[in-house]
């Protein structure tokens, strides 16, 4: 997504509409598919995770592709969103009986808390550059995971109690309820996430990001990416725009976290789901789909989430195959020689067609 001249604004709109259409068609297709009774349980169960990862990939693409900063701590924002959202749903169970309404507010809570974290972390982090920025985001992600693992929060008639030691030190009344239980996390979150909600959130995330990219703000952000000093010299407030992009990206990741936490009844911060491995996983979606290419992120996230599950029949070999696919894809996509070869091939095909027509 390079900066577009004015004349091609229409084309951008068309491209964006195609992206929305792909997502909506996917939803329609799945609906028809399941009405026809063709859905397997596996595929059915994968739908919400796919939406979660699509949202994460799209939001990280804002940081990596549009803002041009490498972040290895995206899972941390997802973690914050997941925990704050699930916490809200659990804590408000008696106040707001409707699960749907609680879930809707939880989405907002998750987005707000993650945005706050994104903002607070962004202030120091965005002063750094390149790999140093990457390592600091990785560090923040790990710190968040570590802190959540020692956090105990309980609720009784006197209000909320907080501790980083153990349940006993919460001093709860006998009828009080422990909501976040250290490493055991939050259990019993109602399963409110559905595929339709997931798709709506994907569309919302796309709407926010695509509009941002094509706005004055977005052009300022991309100007910073392409040449920071030049951008500064024409009066763009670097800090403001960087922080803005980073915060929005974090906030959308928080929404994905809420979706994640309301899809499973047990939520604990483990290295697998909220550690740096997950951050890297999301980064893989972004890079494979094409840095800055939102539609590519969506497709890559869908394929790479489904791939290991569809390879289940290969047992132990599936992760091996996955690794090989990843390497081959990267070589095929990015190696200068492979690109040159592909271009020659494309030219020949095109050339062949031209002759055929003539």
């Amino acid at each position: 997504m390079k900066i577009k001249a004015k004349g091609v604004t229409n084309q951008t709109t068309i491209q964006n509409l195609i992206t929305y259409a792909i997502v909506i068609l996917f939803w329609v297709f799945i609906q028809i598919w399941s009405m026809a009774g063709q859905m397997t349980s596996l595929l059915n169960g994968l739908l919400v995770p796919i939406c979660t990862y699509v949202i994460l990939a799209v939001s990280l693409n804002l940081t990596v592709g549009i803002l041009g900063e490498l972040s290895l701590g995206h899972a941390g924002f997802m973690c914050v969103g997941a925990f704050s959202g699930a916490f809200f749903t659990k804590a408000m169970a008696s106040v707001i009986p409707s699960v749907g309404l609680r879930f809707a507010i939880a989405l907002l809570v998750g987005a707000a808390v993650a945005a706050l974290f994104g903002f607070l972390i962004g202030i120091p982090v965005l002063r750094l550059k390149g790999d140093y920025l990457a390592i600091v985001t990785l560090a923040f992600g790990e710190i968040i995971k570590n802190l959540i693992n020692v956090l105990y929060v309980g609720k009784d008639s006197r209000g909320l109690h907080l501790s980083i030691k153990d349940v006993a030190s919460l001093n709860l009344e006998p009828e009080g309820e422990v909501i976040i239980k250290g490493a055991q996390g939050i259990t019993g979150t109602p399963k409110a996430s559905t595929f339709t909600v997931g798709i709506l959130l994907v569309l919302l995330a796309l709407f926010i990001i695509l509009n941002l990219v094509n706005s004055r703000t977005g052009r300022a952000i991309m100007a910073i990416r392409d040449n920071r000093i030049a951008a500064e010299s024409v009066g763009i407030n670097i800090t403001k725009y960087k922080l803005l992009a980073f915060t929005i990206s974090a906030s959308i990741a928080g929404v994905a976290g809420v979706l994640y936490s309301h899809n499973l009844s047990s939520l604990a911060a483990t290295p697998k789901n909220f550690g740096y491995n997950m951050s890297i996983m999301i980064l893989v979606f972004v890079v494979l789909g094409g840095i800055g290419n939102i539609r590519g992120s969506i497709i890559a996230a869908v394929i790479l989430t489904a791939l290991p599950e569809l390879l289940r029949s290969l047992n132990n070999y599936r992760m091996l195959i996955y690794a090989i696919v990843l390497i081959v894809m990267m070589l095929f996509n990015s190696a200068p020689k492979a690109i040159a070869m592909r271009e020659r091939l494309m030219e020949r095909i095109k050339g062949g067609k031209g002759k055929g027509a003539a």
Partner: protein
Amino acid sequence: MKKVVSLGLVAAMAGSLVACGGNSAETTTAAATETTAAEAKETAAQGEKEETEATDGGAALEGSFKVGVIGPLTGDAAAYGLAVQHGAEIAAEEINAAGGINGAAIEIQAQDDEADPEKSVNAYNTLKDWGMQMLVGTTTSGACIAVAAETVNDNMFQITPSGSAVECVANPNAFRVCFSDPDQGTASAQYIGENKMATKVAIIYDSSSVYSDGIRETFVSEAPSQGIEIVASEAFTADNKTDFSVQLDKAKEAGAELVFLPIYYQEASIILKQAADKEFKPIFFGVDGMDGILSVENFDTSLAEGVMLLTPFAADAEDAKGFTTKYVDAYGETPNQFAADAYDAVYAVAEAAKVAGITPDMGASDICDALVPAMTQITIDGLTGTGTTWNEAGEPNKDPKAVKIVGGKYEMQ
């Protein structure tokens, strides 16, 4: 554009792979079991075995019950999931050889969840697509809680071999074979107190594990009433589970006479080694996760001399000999408590199925309705306890056994 092209390429590649896998899974019963197990060679051999069995008793066994197993078969907790898978397979083989359930065979398929709740739900859905009628799983607590929320929706009968967190069996359709975490914590404190083993106790636990943290919590709350003083409570996390020198130093300095280790055997084996290097020699006391420590490859078993553990199973016990021999022959390693729990779980399912009189043509939900009341009527003399019964809450009723490691062997106390 080129990205889209190459992504499509991968999709096609993946699609063809899946198609290959799919074909083999759809063929026959024996082939289906073949696709389940982790080690292709082993299962191939086993598949043949089962096939011959099927032909031997072909007249006797009609149809089969599809029993799913879920556990981490890859990833750093794979040792536990593989043990569960292997234990369940041995039990199924034995039951089939002895005439099956109500004239039908048991067919096992295991799916990998990497001990992750999300993957575990995927594994569960895969098994549902296969036509699973009963679930033996899942192996780890966190994943088990997530899957339990799915099984109760589907009304699928679930018995977890080793999911020890309280919430694992909160639903009426779920049962477990192992003790719950609070039970283990309390029982350990009581055992230490009653046998006057120590008054100053240090705990080293995995603060990132639901299992370890759960046991520690109840141990700490029971300790004062048993006259136990907790002098040090040191944690480690999944990211830092190879260096215990600081935790051991602190326990040593606090003057601990006994170190309570509510953790799995892989970490415990390192703790024992590092404690020996430091010449720190308290009594080490573990729970069921400690079982298996003697089979850690290249582990100097003399380091474990005198270690106590409260576990329902000991591979060297007289009544476990038959199982242990079979297990070693088939998989080349000594079974641990995970394998024994899974073995008992399959037997419990078989026993309950006999009492309930279910047949393979029944749907999963009908089977669940029939099995749940039957579970509270059965009594199992299994590897992990004689005369085990289950209550309606899904908890087993059996006595924990204290095991001491003497001369490189587990010895019942």
